[in-house]
């Protein structure tokens, strides 16, 4: 049996080696994608292009705008005269936010009923979230400071408790400086490996079927299960190579600290590789031709990107959607990857995820083998 599996493996190795350009793509693609996404993705958006309509141009408006601009969230890209100008600029896409300060701002502040409007481009998700939150916090902060100053000038500076009596110390665990890359790298490593493993095996069976060579293989003494194992083995090597290079780039190039145990991570990642290969094999056996396989792969990777917890948190999803998320290997590996790389936790806190992943692999392999056998009859 081992001999037959090895024969198949050898055949697959030769076939992969012959297709040299595909092999180069397979080996380097995840790496290039990681570098690209590492630079491109920002969830906490700063330096939002902003137009300013300052209708006062006095001391109070300058103080207010200074606070907004110095926060780093709003970059002034132009000045307009009023709200119409702001809307025009946002419509044209030249700015994503606009600050409108009404006339006679200083007087209004003195009387205590000044109102600043901040318009935010609501067609872009992360930009509007960041702008909205930053504007609320900075605006409130500025107002509190102003009232303190007013109190001071009114001669109440003798009051010792003029500073806020209540402060919150907000600590972000595992990522104290709130760096985007530290969020993204552990998740994207998991995502790239999943996509890669599914693509690798998805074409494996259906390709032989389309070319008619599957029949030739089946008249040999090789059993279906042996055929599948033999086909997977070369891909394991490719996937492991991808995993190690991607991880190395994440740690050494992007400087994301690896908090946990490397060996634990590698052994669980090895397990994870099988789950993706298994899912790809299943897709391959249920597809009639490579075009169908291609559509299914596309569907599965896109869906897992959204439901797997890599970008959007899973605990906010409705239960049914969360259940559907369980059909992707990514869902099980994102907590493992984040747990080991970012949190530095050990196997004792990950037992649930590891058992689910193992069960997943077992089920997907059995289902794939069964549907393959059915297809042959």
């Amino acid at each position, binding site marked *: 049996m081992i001999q037959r599996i090895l024969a198949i493996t050898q055949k697959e190795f030769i076939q992969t080696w012959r297709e040299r350009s595909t092999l180069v793509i397979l080996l380097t693609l995840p790496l290039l994608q990681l570098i690209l996404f590492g630079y491109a993705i920002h969830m906490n958006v700063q330096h939002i292009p902003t137009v300013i309509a300052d209708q006062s141009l006095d001391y109070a408006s300058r103080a207010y705008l200074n606070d907004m601009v110095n926060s780093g969230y709003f970059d002034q890209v132009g000045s307009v005269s009023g709200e119409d100008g702001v809307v025009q600029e*946002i419509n044209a896409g030249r700015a994503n936010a606009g600050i409108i300060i009404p006339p006679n701002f200083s007087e209004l502040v003195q009387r205590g009923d000044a109102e600043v409007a901040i318009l*935010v481009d609501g067609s872009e998700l992360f930009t509007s979230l960041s702008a909205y939150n930053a504007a609320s916090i900075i605006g409130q902060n500025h107002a509190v400071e102003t*009232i303190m100053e007013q109190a001071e000038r009114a001669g109440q500076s003798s009051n010792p408790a003029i500073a806020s009596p209540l402060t919150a110390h907000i600590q972000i*665990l595992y990522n104290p400086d709130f760096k985007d890359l530290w969020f993204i790298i552990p998740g994207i490593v998991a995502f790239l490996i999943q996509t890669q493993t599914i*693509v690798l095996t998805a074409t494996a069976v259906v390709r032989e079927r389309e070319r008619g060579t599957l029949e030739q293989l089946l008249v040999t003494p090789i059993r279906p299960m042996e055929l599948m194992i033999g086909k997977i083995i070369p891909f394991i090597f490719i996937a492991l190579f991808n995993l190690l290079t991607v991880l190395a780039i994440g740690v050494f190039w992007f400087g994301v600290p690896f908090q946990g145990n490397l060996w634990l991570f590698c052994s669980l990642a090895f397990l994870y590789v099988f789950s993706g290969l298994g899912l790809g094999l299943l897709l391959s056996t249920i597809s009639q031709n490579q075009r169908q396989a291609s559509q299914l792969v596309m569907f599965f990777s896109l869906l897992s990107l959204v439901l797997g917890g890599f970008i959007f948190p899973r605990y906010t999803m*409705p239960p049914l*959607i969360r259940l559907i998320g369980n059909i992707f290997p990514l869902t099980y590996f994102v907590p493992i990857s984040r747990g080991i790389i970012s949190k530095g936790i050990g196997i004792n806190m990950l037992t649930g995820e590891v058992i689910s992943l193992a069960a997943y692999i077992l089920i997907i392999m059995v289902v794939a083998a069964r549907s393959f056998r059915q297809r042959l009859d």
Partner: protein
Amino acid sequence: MIRFQRLRALILKETTQLVRDPRTLVLILSLPVILLFLFAYAVSLTVYHLPTALVDQSHDPESRKLVDAFHNSGYFDFVTAYDNELQIRNALDAGIVKAGLLIPPGIKDDVQRGKANILVLLDGSDSFSVQSGFNAASLITQKLGFDLVAEKITGPSKSLPLPIITNPRVLYNPDLNDLVFLVPGLVALLVQNIIVSHAAMAVVREREAGTMEQLLITPSRPVEILIAKLVPGSLLAIIEMVIILLLSTFWFKVPFQGSLPLFAALAVLFIISGMALGLLISTVSKTQRMAQQISVVMMVFGVLLTGFIFPRTSMPLWTQVIGNLIPLTYFVRIARGIITKGIGMEFMLPDTLSLVAFALVCLVLSSILFKRRLE
């Protein structure tokens, strides 16, 4: 040069091939609809109800006021209570909670003396939770602190209004509705996926099956073969786009602000440029496996680089340039402009011209490469 009669025959052949494979046809048409539904229900962009652990070491009126303020904000759901900080950290490690609030002993006296300090812990491995939690926690404590100061200045009876009120207003989407953000981009993304992957298989499939040679010994010219391959797929994509738009407008109630004919015209342009990109992939690829690999990459690029989810303004220039190599980048802006903003053609001229140029370059390149491959 291009004979209509030959072209019609070729288009007929492509259509027959497509219709003869009904399972693929059903897959192509139904998968995007399923994706639309799952995305729409799965994605929520502002995170409320963070599972939170509470350690209240004071148990006095002041601490209760704090806990109430956190709870009433809607951002924090207290799911467990512990005795000390270490237990919160363990719960965060294990992923049981995403945030923790610690109120030290004697908070009432500390507030009187003006130096109360509470601790908020957030799970930094999850970006959305951190953003929502951080902002909510700062706003809540700032407000409470301010109220306490105001009480001291004016006495407990009078309340002191803030002298400056900042009103952030979100244009086009005043209620921060998740679907309004998501749907216009999603329509574009789903359609691009179909057309790129469909067209990417077109040429390489015939080559692998060996039927390309048969086509080439007919009088048809290479350009005609390529155009014929575009037509049935484009029709399919148009049908798909209509289905998705109908669903998003009538089922998900995402308002369509702009001009429908303008959108339709630009959507056809987008579909043609996507097809052209797919054809280019197809002529470059040696095998279907390679074509498939490249189209998956295009899909992932489409999600992450085109501005569909992550904003392009905060990307470095070189990744923006790479994003410009995908037609989706231009069409995400167009779709949002027409569907969400309701703006007209005068704002979209650069993106429209870019799409035209993109389609032309891809078509010319792929027919040159196609001819070279033949020799």
